[in-house]
């Protein structure tokens, strides 16, 4: 059995996956940081353009376009991506729609991480009947097609951003609970936790200062992948008519409403699709990169 200190280090310190003697190990080190830096930078740029750039007032309003400027092609003056069928600037709708996508994705992850993460942690650490009850309830949620719940919530509450967030959290809470339970279970009987317990540390202190920091890499990389799924599902809700209501912009409803004009004006669908794809790819790449950097399985 290894010493506790080594165990703590094993999860906290990045695990060098390539053995030192392997040819190209150095280059792979550079590649590995590129795996994180490139998608991270793209995401930061996207966030900057969506949230901060419009504040400078250089972006036209996403609604209330003029009839004279409908259906402008790409790269027309003042409208880089052209305008849509009611004369709104597509660039600006992309940026404001991106705000919705990012806010929804982040909120759903935060809700899932706090509620689901806590449930999983408590279930794993407490054990006994509490774990049994929590896990049976989770089983119900897992055997339950989450989309039914999401659609029911979205339909009942009516289309709006905050309702989409609540509906999608029905997905993320059970998923986070499962991941966090698995992570906590693998840590629960590790020597450093046992040592803390034997030395009389309080349960909540063990959970939050010993377990949580060691679970974070797993939960954070999971939430990046979750964010990409959330963005996709948010678009799907738009498709089914339960998403962000039309005058407001979101990538999903731009794609959904643009589909009626695909034969005459494909850019209405192509531009938001590309932004959606770029965002989800970067989230997935960043998740993967961090996962291999932190040695999360």
């Amino acid at each position, binding site marked *: 059995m290894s010493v506790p200190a080594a165990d703590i280090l094993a999860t906290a310190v990045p695990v060098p996956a390539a053995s030192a003697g392997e040819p190209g190990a150095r280059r792979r080190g550079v590649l590995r940081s590129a795996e994180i830096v490139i998608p991270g930078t793209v995401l930061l740029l996207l966030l900057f353009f969506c949230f901060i750039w419009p504040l400078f007032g250089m972006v036209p309003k996403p609604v209330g376009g003029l009839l004279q400027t409908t259906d402008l092609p790409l790269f027309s003056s003042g409208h880089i991506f052209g305008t849509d069928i009611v004369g709104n600037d597509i660039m600006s709708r992309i940026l404001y729609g991106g705000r919705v996508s990012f806010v929804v994705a982040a909120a759903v992850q935060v809700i899932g991480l706090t509620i689901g993460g806590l449930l999983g942690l408590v279930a794993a650490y407490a054990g006994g009947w509490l774990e049994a009850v929590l896990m049976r309830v989770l089983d119900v949620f897992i055997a339950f097609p*989450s989309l039914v719940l999401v659609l029911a919530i979205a339909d009942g509450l009516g289309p709006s951003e905050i309702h989409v967030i609540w509906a999608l959290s029905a997905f993320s809470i059970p998923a986070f609970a499962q991941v966090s339970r698995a992570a906590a279970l693998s840590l629960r009987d590790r020597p450093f936790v046992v040592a803390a317990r034997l030395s009389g540390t309080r349960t909540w202190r063990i959970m939050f200062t010993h377990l949580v920091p060691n679970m974070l890499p797993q939960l954070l990389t999971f939430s990046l992948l979750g964010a990409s799924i959330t963005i996709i599902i948010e678009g799907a809700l738009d498709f*089914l008519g339960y998403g962000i209501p039309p005058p407001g912009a979101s990538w999903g409803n731009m794609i959904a409403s643009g589909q009626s004009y695909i034969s005459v004006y494909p850019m209405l669908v192509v531009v938001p699709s590309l932004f959606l794809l770029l965002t989800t790819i970067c989230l997935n790449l960043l998740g993967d990169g961090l996962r291999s950097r932190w040695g999360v399985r």
Partner: protein
Amino acid sequence: MNTSVSVQPARRPGGARARRLAGSPALRVSGRRLLAAIPVLWGVTLLSFLVLNALPGDAASALLGINATPAELKAFRIKLHLNEPLWTRYGNWLGGVVHGDLGTSIASPQSVASILGQRLPVTLELVIFALVITLVVSIPLAVLCARRPRGIIDRFNMVLSMGSISIAPYVLAFFLVIVFAVDLPVFPAIYSAPTSIISNVYQFALPSIILALPLIGFYTRFLRADLLEQMQSEDYVVTARAKGVSEWRILTRHALRNSFIGLLTIIGLNIATLIGATVIVEQIFSLPGIGQELLQSISNRNVTVVEGIVLVFGVAVVLANLLTDLAYGVLDPRIRHVRSRS
């Protein structure tokens, strides 16, 4: 562990076979799992019943529209027993289900069972096609990738799988429809009832490819990683190498068989997600499957139909997990032996 779910051994000559069957670990595992599934399925129906009833509006107001008078609404509710308390309605429904009766739809005089009977084959076909495409593509692809890690196929696959995991199904549907249904009219973009087996395959080609692609990316990545790990660290691989078995044979005969166990787990866990994704794909291609019915029934507050669908989804997930469990035993003798001893 003693679970007496299995069939009692027959007390007559020639009952040895029956006795062996009854004692078989597979049957015992199935029985145990099915028993454990009952509370889960019950929870699923209860949850969906509560959620649907917590929503504003009910079937009466959804079906009769905003112009209905209060008297009409009241009559409709009494006719369909919607005026009874929540628990009475749930109890009645549950009582019916236990006796094999799923009830009748609120929106039409059809029984829920016959609606499911019409809709289920479409969704089932979609799911099966998607799974078959996924496995046929991803298993050979993963083996080829694992043969030469960081070789040309592997690199190509990394890009491909990252793309296929990241792309939204509706975006993919849009591009595939443009290419294969509009520009090159190979496949139909909109469903029409198939007349022969071949036209049936055509109808389902695009929707099942769309369902399969993200799974292909996911499974290939998983299987490749698992194969590589087996090849690097497992003792049986060392033994096989020492015997002089070729690398290719170790990969396809030894490592692959072991990796199937992990793959099965992932498939079992993914079934619920796959079924959920059919709802969106059915909507895009206007396939008359369960998903369409579900969307309609949720907005009509057609509780009995939603409950029926949720129950079917739940049973499908439970059965998929059971099959996964049984397949473990087939693939891994260690699991089989532990079970027969327990």
